[in-house]
């Protein structure tokens, strides 16, 4: 009972291959235009790929090639919750949720009972008699979730379900999703690392139609390999070849750190032969106007490109690197875009792991 998918669409440069086990939730992340929603539509049966195949357990959802097969969306057992709730405006909340069971051939009374059950599950039973136009955005999305669950889908697709919600409704829906996704197979497309952390067991990062990174959520965020995953994890990541306890990078010179991840147990890797990454959080970076003397530190001469508020701190961006400094330090340094400064980070703060 696993979802296996391979699909390519030439014109969108999409070429993906993935599998989702039973009771597993997969988070799909990546920049805009990476192909995340395309992926969802292919699985739902709303878009035909040029080539590929998908199986859900023993059933084939689609297959191209010599014996092509295309299961229409209504026969796939795949539920979809999009950014917009898309509640049918001419039906009451109860009838919206009962729509799926009714379509599957259940009687009116049975369908209503199923609908009430799922409305209860999303804490929306009291909304049953309302029209979709009388709901708030958060309420509508909860009802849409109940509607998707009421068909008991073998796979639930969530395409940025929280994106259209205000900051008050999103946390409620997130914890609701955590509850209902437990023990259920789901794919969630999201821009928020919190969704991935809370809801997903595994994460894939897509970029320009390809999967550039994949693995357990915690592992991907702890040791990001793509620049997108690094920005998700809020880490500076530099790549290069590992030499001793340092990474020789092309653009930032030698970066000293401590070996972690795959390197931690295996002892020192062969000098110069292994590709590795060096990661450190912006909070570990100090900013100086002149290169500091003394203790063994990494020092990167950079030009400031952007300054932006970031919680209590100010994030100083310089190309691919970022540093978080206090407003007081910012005032002392008198930074502005274009300032030439030195980013300094202790070797102990830099994690080095295999690529």
């Amino acid at each position: 009972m696993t979802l296996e998918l391979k699909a390519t669409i030439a014109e969108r440069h999409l070429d993906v291959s993935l599998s989702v086990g039973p009771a597993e939730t997969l988070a799909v992340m990546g920049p805009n235009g990476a192909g995340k929603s395309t992926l969802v539509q292919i699985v739902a049966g709303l878009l035909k790929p040029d080539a590929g195949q998908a199986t859900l357990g023993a059933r084939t959802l689609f297959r191209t090639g010599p014996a092509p097969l295309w299961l229409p969306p209504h026969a796939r057992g795949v539920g979809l919750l999009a950014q917009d709730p898309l509640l049918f405006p001419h039906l009451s909340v109860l009838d919206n949720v009962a729509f799926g069971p009714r379509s599957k051939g259940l009687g009116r009374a049975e369908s209503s009972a199923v609908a009430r059950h799922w409305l209860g599950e999303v804490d929306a039973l009291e909304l049953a008699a309302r029209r979709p136009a009388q709901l708030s955005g958060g309420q509508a999305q909860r009802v849409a979730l109940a509607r998707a669950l009421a068909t008991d889908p073998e796979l639930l697709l969530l395409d940025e379900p929280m994106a259209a919600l205000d900051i008050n409704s999103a946390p409620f829906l997130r914890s609701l999703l955590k509850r209902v996704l437990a023990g259920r197979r789901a794919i969630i497309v999201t821009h928020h690392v919190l969704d991935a952390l809370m809801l997903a067991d595994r994460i894939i990062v897509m970029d320009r139609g390809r999967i550039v990174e994949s693995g357990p959520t915690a592992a991907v965020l702890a040791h990001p390999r793509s620049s997108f995953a690094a920005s998700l994890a809020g880490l500076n990541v530099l790549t290069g070849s590992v030499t001793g306890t340092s990474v020789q990078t092309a653009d930032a010179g030698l970066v000293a750190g401590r070996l972690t991840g795959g390197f931690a147990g295996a002892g020192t890797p062969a000098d110069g032969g292994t590709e590795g990454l060096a990661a450190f959080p912006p909070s570990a970076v100090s900013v100086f106007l002149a290169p500091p003397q003394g203790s063994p530190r990494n020092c990167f001469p950079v030009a400031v490109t952007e300054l932006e508020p970031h919680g209590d701190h100010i994030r100083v961006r310089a190309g691919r690197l970022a540093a978080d400094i206090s407003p007081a330090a910012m005032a002392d340094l008198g930074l502005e875009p274009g300032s030439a400064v030195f980013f300094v980070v202790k070797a102990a703060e830099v994690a080095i792991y295999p690529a």
Partner: protein
Amino acid sequence: MPVLAHHSAGQSGPGRRKAVKRWEYQAVPRWVFALAAAGALFILLPLLGMVAKVNWGNFIPLITSDSSRAALLLSLRTAAASTGLCIVFGVPLALVLARARFTGQRILRALILLPLVVPPVVGGLALLYTFGREGLIGKSLSLAGINIAFSTTAVVMAQAFVALPFLVLSLEGTLRTAGQRYEAVAATLGARPSTVLRRITLPLVLPGLVSGAVLAFARSLGEFGATLTFAGSLQGVTRTLPLEIYLQRETDPDAAVALSFLLIAVAVVVVGLTYRTPKLPAPRGASGRGLNVDAGSSAGVPADTGPDGARP
């Protein structure tokens, strides 16, 4: 006309207090209002001119004569039948044009809209040379004992021929604007295409379908040229109200004016009761926030919804 009045009335939802009309900025220059008024007068003045000519003293006897009653009843019957035909064939046509993608689609659309631009007399001739006794199909039908031309059936066909594009055009536009997102969601919920059509698509575009059907009915009611050419003018069989009016104009102008007034009254009642400015379900489902125009039109507001109102 009533259309305008309904447009503003449709906004209030069920069970909500009547919203106070608040001033809102509208980017319509004043001179546009002047031209619009001139346009409205251009339609209204001739109507007034005719009403002024009505012989009110004899009005009732004039419109209740045998020939008048026969013509009115025939007109209502045939226009209703033609509207039915337009719905049966026009809804699938609009769906295919709006949703499907196939080669020749643009040509098909152009051909279906042809009756809008072709003079009705030409349409009548085309029907005659197709379904007439000596026509393309009519010949075989005639051998089988079926004669369509110059029958009430011919009246209905002539009316449907000219009225079909009105329904197709109106509904296709509504379908396109409504989009397919609700339909896609319904499919992922396990609904087969026929179920989606019945429970989602048609209810959502019902306002457009109703206004299209009303337009088709109105066009059928006024049909003259194609009817005369293809069906002739036999009292009680093919002489509809417009034909009767034209005939009476020669002999009894008072009767012609009275019947014209009757025809206008019927049209105003039908259109006024059922025609609504096509409204669409909120295109974004992120409903709830702000005003949702759709609430009024699809929730069936008893106060301002006609007999064919908005509910399935």
